[in-house]
């Protein structure tokens, strides 16, 4: 575990250095922030105001010193501390990711386990088809169809926004579909392997009931590969769900990152990457802990 923490720390440092220089390579924010017909005097003034006139290495040194004091500077576009902007957005993404992953995990494990119990049965075939469609349908398309059907035609849920619980239904549903299809297939496969193993046969021979076989004997052993996939999916969501955030007007960190890259709002890009990288690092730690809980042999 310690080794993992140390290596993650070095990755984080490498990320800061890389992102700093790569973002600078994209060009000058003055050209985007100021109007297209800004005078040279205005451009110079803007660069001076935001410290962009200094040599790159000097800008980097200043940046590192600031970051060490947890100061990420101000957002050029929003005229507020970059870290505040990022944390606000990240809170939205975190909520969206947690709700979705919790639902996906609960449903995919339950349905996948039941489907794996009778492979090739009607329920299994139906579930496999649905999960395949879910894993391959584009988010954008599902979102727009969802709005047309459930918001405009039926009027059941709002088209977009964040005001009430109802506002969360469509975005969570859209975000749910792909990981649900994927995780369900992994659960099904993993459970089918487990059902065929010697210890399940023994348990059956001893007359243990189906429910007990699934939830007591098999599930724990079949969960290791499933946790890996859940971890990957959760990491992707913590990075922001750009399409869903854009369409449903969710002020999440994914959209913020894309907007900041397009607008060259360097301080926000760097703060957003630091925050999401840290969140993914914490989540990986949690997965490691879950692994060791499920499989005591990994506790070394």
């Amino acid at each position, binding site marked *: 575990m310690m080794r993992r923490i140390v290596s993650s720390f070095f990755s984080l440092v490498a990320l800061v250095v890389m992102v700093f220089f790569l973002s600078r390579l994209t060009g000058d924010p003055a050209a985007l922030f100021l109007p*297209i017909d800004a005078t040279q005097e205005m451009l110079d003034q*803007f660069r001076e105001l935001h410290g962009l006139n200094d040599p790159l290495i000097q800008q980097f040194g200043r940046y590192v010193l600031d970051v060490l004091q947890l100061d990420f500077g101000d957002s050029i576009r*929003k*005229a507020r501390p970059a870290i505040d902007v990022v944390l606000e957005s990240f809170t939205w993404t975190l909520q969206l990711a947690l709700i979705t992953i919790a639902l996906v995990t609960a449903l995919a494990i339950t349905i996948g386990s039941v489907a794996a119990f009778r492979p090739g049965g009607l329920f299994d075939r139906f579930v496999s088809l649905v999960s395949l469609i879910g894993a391959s349908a584009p988010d954008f398309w599902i979102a727009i169809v969802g*709005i047309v059907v459930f918001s*405009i035609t039926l009027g*059941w849920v709002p*088209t977009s926004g964040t005001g009430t619980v*109802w506002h969360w239904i469509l975005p969570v549903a859209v975000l749910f579909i792909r990981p649900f299809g994927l995780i369900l297939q992994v659960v099904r496969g993993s459970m089918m392997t487990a059902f065929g193993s010697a210890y399940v046969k023994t348990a059956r021979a001893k007359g243990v009931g189906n429910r007990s076989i699934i939830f007591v004997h098999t599930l724990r052993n079949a969960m290791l590969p499933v946790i890996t996939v859940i971890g990957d999916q959760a990491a992707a969501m913590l990075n922001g769900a750009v399409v869903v955030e854009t369409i449903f007007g969710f002020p999440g960190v994914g*959209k913020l990152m894309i907007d900041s890259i397009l607008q060259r709002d360097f301080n926000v890009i760097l703060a957003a990457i630091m925050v999401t990288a840290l969140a993914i690092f914490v989540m990986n730690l949690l997965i490691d802990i879950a692994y060791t809980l499920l499989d005591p042999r990994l506790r070394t």
Partner: protein
Amino acid sequence: MKGKRLLLGLMMTASAAASAWAQEAKDITVVLDEEVDLVEPCMATRSNIGRIILQNVSETLTELDVRNNKGLMPRLAESWEEASPGTWRFHLRKDAKFSDGSSFDAGDVKHSIERAMSDKISCESPRYFGDTKLETKVVDDNTVDITATPAQPILPLLMTLVTIVPAETPIEFTREPVGTGPYKLTEWKAGQSITLTRRDDYWGSAPEVTKATYVFRADPSVRAAMVAAGEADIAPLISELDANDAEMDFSYPNSETFYMRLDHSIPPLNDKRVRQALNMALDRDAFIGTLLPKGAIKATAIVPPTTLGWNPDVKVAPYDPEGAKKLLAEAKADGVPVETPIAIVGRTNNFPNVVEVLEAAQQMFEEVGFKTKLQMYEVAEFEKQYSKPYPENRGPLLVAAQHDNARGDPVFSMYFKYDSNGRQSGIANPDVDKMIAEATAATGEKRAADWKKLIAYLHDDVVADVLLFHMVGYARVNPRIDFTPTIATNSQLQLSEIRIK
């Protein structure tokens, strides 16, 4: 049966909940295309900031009426006159109060101008003043003198761009805009919405709309869907594809002119016959109602027809491929390298169908004998080709761009686009420079006549560029409100103009 009842019950609950996100009677919701990062009054010339702030929260000394063609109208200034050459005297309204309760006076005007022009803040407004320096002198509480160096005959018009803030406003960008307008900002949920609420102590008559909430959705289909579902009342920008409901959708001139800037210093574009051939090669009518909306108008100037000095006598070059071929042949015979490949430089996402429009134009150019290549860039890369200093060792370029001028006077366009020192000029012509300088300094009827002359000269004699279309935008308006989008909607959305049916 039980299941059916449950489903029915759920649906009814959902429908009841749906009314919770419908609008209160006199409250409206406006859905904008991108999140507003700032609501700083001195940034109000930026479209979406302007739509929220301009004349709603922050007012200006004067106001340009493009809706009813009343021209320049009083707002915080009741009247004005040129007191001495270069100095304009503004007589201010006595009964206006800021939303923080303080009274409006000449000191606020002085501070607002100095703040907007300060080099300690990157405001938008100074761009419209070019190199003009302003000096403001308080004569008394209700009178202010503004001196422009060099003298600025349209200073009262320029004052439509300077929003007035209280003298106590710090130089840094403020996130709590205080103005004299009929509304005040009462809630700002970062990334989600901004709410303006009607003031009881506004100096003018009380508008009908009591509260306006601005929300941000990047996807045009969602913006259109929000109005259709009754969640929003106005979507100032939707795509042509989504504008499919005659009852709710309006097209309006959006003050943008689409054109191709030609670099006259590089062969073969330095030859007038080649520039004429480019103009004659385009079947402009073929674009309208197909790749571009029906309301697009063929352009003869870089400014839209609502602008002072717009010249109705200037005619669009006729579509004449044979004539274009003939001109090219003549130029070639004189040694002009007409076969040099010309790059058409476009900007991705500039407007819907921009790539298709440029591809069609490319096809038409090639049909008369030009060799062209199309290069699409994102905004920052595009800007390198569009503004000076232009890249060294560049070849002949047609830079396809949109130019926005809803300000009513060509001065905001002509220097930048056509003066030898203009940052986006493709020409260097002393006669044009002189004409721009004269028109800029002129007033009254002479000013209109001077611009008219310049527009004709650029189009007919210089053949400065390939002018294409005055563009239109689409807006969706909920039938429960009475509001018709106009060219002004491109930069502001006065809530006081909205009635509830």
